[in-house]
């Protein structure tokens, strides 16, 4: 590893407004997605899904469906004799034994029970209607509270309860502090919502020369390949995973879903290409759901409101938990963020993740952090009200100041840098100004109330994968090859779901080598063409993928300099690399081009310095030194390579008649360390805020008491451009001393703050009615119920 990270060349592109590489294709509809692939002989698959939330399968009759003209085969779990259940590497959890098709029981409405393979999707759907399944219905567990009950019906009969995960750390130290002080208790809940990428899930499997080729929407080419080799009777060398253009992942596409396995199995069995393209109705019930947390906080409070110690219980509703990798990790992440960027030394968090008869929970942008921030930031406002202190001063009295850094939180997170207090003060300044303006505008309107709310937060970025999989860790990889014409091929394990990964890989490679960006070709997301990497999750790719690029580039550049020094007969220290040329300092005409050097390295190897190996290529792997994968004996872990921070302010108007919240101003100060591409960073913030506001105000995945999903796509209110306010974004840059170039991840920050900021703004706006604001979503009906009826 390296002590100081630097670019090998002058930063020509890093920090500049480099145009995103894929925009032409994406904006003109020329991107090739899985659904655009149609190899000859392709068959399509439709999944027969359980309409029952919890039941025992007593019979499956497929003959009538199999007899439909154009149907190739109908399969059930019984046919998958050579398929293994998904593995579970987490010894600290119970194992759901997830299998691609339901075996004896169904545990959520939408469970895959059978598959119809047909000449096309129309026929497959016609025949799927004819598959008859008999169920003996069982009582459904439909809420996290119900799942916690000791006599709750069990989803997995070999478990003694519905707790997949149950971590109860020793809380005696905190209990002692609670016992001697004023204690405040609150319960917060965040509802169930999820990513709604424009492209649904899709997979196409084909057999080429005895090898399985899987084109899919998964966020990790290599993790997908390895997982397939665990589940299918195939050697890893016989699997190639390629991820073409993807229309948004957001964590939802982190999981290797049953359909990915099923298309592969069917393609191998029938020797013809098999495709599955999820439709939106399936997406609502069969792609991972997220959030659905309950957080109980008990805190010892000083006279001035400061939190002296906290005891927290986090419970996450996993749905049926039949998903790989497992989905309990958001609850662990919530636990790690419960103190926020405040100096709260004593905090103990117990974590439970429970199974219910709902769609499996999974990853979603924010990954446990929005839940923690909503609970803690609402709690601080409630303490301020309770104690009678100013909510901003209360935050100031606890916020980490520059002199406190580096600071290790109670959970073990190493905050090595950040602008916690500074970004907060800036947002307060802008927020108070915007609030005054709103107040002046609406003061005389009897139907309106305005309020401003704040949230200040840190967010772990670039985490270990171990929390989710208990298997993979945290490295990323990169191969850089300079070809004889001087052009560069860079291949990395990172992947692009539309967020601009390809562009930052090109940017860092160009600057690290000192070559024009146009000469850099980026190859990603093909397990045959790229070295083993972990792909997209946890806002990690720029930080960790960037580290691998810098390491590989440094190695290539070292060789470039040696060859150039030999060719120019000058010492390597005197050489300057710029725009694809190497020249002697002070003498720009004494130069060789990258093409000269690479031709020497690869073709005219006789001209190499004596003893030098041919070739101009390097592969490097980077695993952040300070990232920890398993907790210590007290449960503390520094699970991330870096920590970004932000402060949010929302100024809202509440319509007292309808309960509708209108966002008048949304202000955010964001700090992701060194910025590589400012428009991409802004884009990430905009998109994150949109999804954060979606979960706060609009999106809600509801189930009734029978476990029947109640939210069709028509009722799942993803905010459109009309609903998203103009944002004021202020940038702070506190480079991390421990990451490549000081970068921190930016992919999720926007998602994390809106629930807390809006909740606090609503509390202020409706203060005269003493509203209880402890849950999201804050739909108009929910808000209207906080307002006395005579107000209309």
């Amino acid at each position, binding site marked *: 590893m390296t002590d100081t990270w630097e670019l090998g060349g002058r930063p020509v592109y890093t920090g500049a407004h480099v145009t995103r590489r894929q925009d032409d294709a994406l904006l003109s509809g020329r991107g090739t997605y899985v659904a655009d692939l149609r190899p000859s002989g392709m068959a399509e698959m439709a999944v027969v899904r359980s309409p029952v939330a919890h039941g025992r399968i007593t019979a499956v009759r497929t003959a009538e469906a199999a007899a439909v003209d154009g149907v190739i085969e109908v399969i059930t779990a019984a046919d998958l004799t050579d398929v293994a259940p998904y593995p579970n590497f987490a010894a600290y959890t119970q194992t759901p034994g997830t299998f691609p098709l339901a075996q004896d029981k169904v545990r959520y409405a939408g469970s895959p029970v059978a598959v119809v393979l047909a000449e096309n*999707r*129309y026929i497959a*759907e*016609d025949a799927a*209607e004819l598959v008859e399944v008999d169920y003996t219905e069982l009582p459904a567990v439909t809420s996290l509270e119900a799942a916690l009950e000791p006599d709750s019906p069990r989803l997995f009969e070999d478990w003694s309860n519905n707790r997949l995960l149950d971590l109860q750390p020793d809380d005696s130290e905190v209990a002692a502090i609670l016992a001697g002080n004023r204690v405040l208790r609150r319960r917060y809940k965040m509802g169930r919502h999820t990513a709604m990428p424009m492209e649904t899930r899709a997979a196409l499997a084909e057999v080429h020369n005895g090898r399985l080729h899987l084109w899919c929407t998964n966020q990790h080419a290599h993790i997908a390949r390895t997982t397939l080799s665990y589940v299918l009777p195939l050697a890893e060398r016989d699997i190639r995973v390629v991820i073409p253009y993807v229309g948004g992942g957001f964590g939802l596409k982190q999981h290797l879903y049953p359909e990915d396995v099923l298309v592969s199995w069917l393609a191998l069995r029938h020797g013809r290409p098999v495709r599955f393209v999820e*439709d*939106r*109705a399936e997406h609502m019930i069969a792609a991972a759901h997220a959030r659905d947390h309950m957080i109980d906080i008990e805190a010892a409070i000083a006279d001035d409101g400061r939190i002296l110690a906290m005891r927290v219980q986090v419970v996450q509703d996993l749905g049926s938990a039949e998903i790989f990798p497992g989905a309990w990790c958001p609850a662990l992440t919530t636990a790690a963020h419960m103190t926020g960027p405040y100096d709260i030394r004593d905090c103990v968090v117990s974590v439970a993740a429970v199974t219910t008869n709902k769609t499996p929970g999974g990853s979603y942008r924010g990954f446990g952090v929005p839940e923690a921030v909503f609970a803690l930031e609402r709690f601080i406002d409630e303490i301020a009200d309770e104690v009678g202190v100013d909510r901003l001063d209360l935050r100031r009295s606890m916020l980490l100041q520059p002199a406190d850094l580096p600071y290790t939180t109670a959970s073990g997170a190493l905050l090595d840098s950040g602008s916690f207090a500074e970004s907060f003060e800036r947002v307060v300044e802008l927020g108070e100004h915007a609030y005054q303006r709103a107040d002046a505008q609406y003061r005389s309107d009897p139907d309106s109330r305005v309020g401003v709310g704040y949230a200040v937060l840190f967010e772990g970025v670039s985490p270990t994968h171990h929390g989710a999989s208990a298997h993979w860790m945290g490295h990323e990889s990169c191969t850089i090859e300079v070809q004889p014409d001087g052009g560069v091929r860079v291949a990395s394990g990172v992947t692009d779901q539309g967020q601009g990964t390809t562009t930052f890989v090109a940017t860092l490679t160009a600057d690290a080598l000192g070559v024009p960006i146009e000469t850099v070709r980026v190859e990603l997301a093909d397990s045959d063409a790229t070295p083993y990497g972990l792909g997209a999750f946890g806002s990690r790719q720029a930080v960790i993928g960037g580290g691998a690029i810098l390491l590989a580039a440094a190695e290539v550049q070292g060789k470039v300099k040696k060859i150039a020094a030999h060719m120019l007969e000058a010492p390597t220290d005197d050489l300057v690399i710029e725009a694809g040329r190497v020249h002697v300092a002070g003498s720009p005409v004494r130069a060789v081009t990258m093409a000269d050097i690479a031709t020497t390295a690869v073709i005219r190897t006789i001209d190499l310095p004596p003893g030098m190996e041919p070739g101009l290529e390097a592969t490097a792997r980077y695993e952040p030194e300070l990232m920890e994968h398993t907790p210590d004996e007290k449960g503390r872990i520094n699970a991330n390579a870096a920590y970004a921070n932000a402060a949010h302010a929302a100024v809202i108007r509440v319509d007292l*008649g*309808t*309960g*509708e919240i209108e966002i008048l101003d949304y202000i955010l100060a964001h700090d992701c360390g060194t910025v590589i591409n400012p428009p991409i960073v802004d884009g990430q913030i905009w998109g994150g805020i949109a999804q954060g506001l979606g979960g706060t105000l*609009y999106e*809600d995945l*509801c189930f009734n008491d029978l476990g029947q999903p*109640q*939210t069709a796509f*028509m*009722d799942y*209110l993803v*905010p*459109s451009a*009309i*609903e998203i306010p103009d944002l004021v974004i202020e940038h702070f840059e506190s480079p991390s001393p421990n990451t490549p170039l000081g970068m921190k991840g930016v992919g999720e920050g926007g998602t994390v703050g809106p629930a807390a900021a809006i909740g606090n703004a609503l509390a202020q706006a409706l203060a005269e009615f003493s509203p209880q604001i402890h849950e999201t979503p804050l*739909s*108009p*009906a929910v808000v*209207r*119920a906080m307002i006395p*009826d005579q107000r*209309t």
Partner: protein
Amino acid sequence: MKPPPFAYCRPHSLHEALELLAEHGDEARPLAGGQSLVPMLNHRLARPAVLVDIGAIGDLQRMDRNESGWMIGATVTQRRVEQESVEGCDLLRLAMPFIGHRQIRARGTVGGSIAHADPAAELPAVALTLDATMVATGLDGERAIPAAAFFAGPYMNSLEEGEILSRVTFPTVPPTTRCSFREFARRKGDFAVAGVAAAVDFEDGSVTAASLTAFAVGSNPVRLTSAEAAVAGRHLDEAALADSAEAAAAEIEPWDDIHGSPQYRRQLVAVLLRRALQEVAP
């Protein structure tokens, strides 16, 4: 989300369409703009064996005005109505922007929306408020159905088998009539959680005629007769607004869904009606 197999025909005359409907009976469904029927086909909620596309029938695309009102052919698009001034028919003009999004209005038709009778749709509420007349055409000829008799429950109308809704007549109102259309939807373009349409005529500041309708709160749009009575003959002062809003909330029987309880919908209708009346008050 693929439809089951169906046959498709696209006749060029109304007579031909009616013959096809007669031939196939309840196996056939007319297809206009497809903004509701096509999703229902894809979700397999509707399974007609034959789709009779009435989009190529010139007679159904006419939009004329005579002394009593606007006669709008069944397949005139909502977007076209929006772009015309529909003079004398303010309520229709006001309601148009609330129907879905512009792309939906470019395909969606006036007749399609009314025949579909979605409880949350705007055009049925406008038709009921203005006492519009639906013209049903069958092989035996035409019959006029008043709006109040046309809607027969959620997604149900009173057309007989073999009949097509061929046009709708929206009466024009006198210049002294003031209109308001109010709807509360979760996002711009969504179906209403609750809505109110009002057409009120005044003389010397007093209400001489009030036509008030609530929609998205029950099986079909409903005339708020108690609320109408509450404002009859009165100036629209605070007390009249309050009486009318209270009467409206009491006389509706709202349903329950994930966007709002009956109680919330009563609150919404009260506040929307109050605001509509404030808007039309001279």
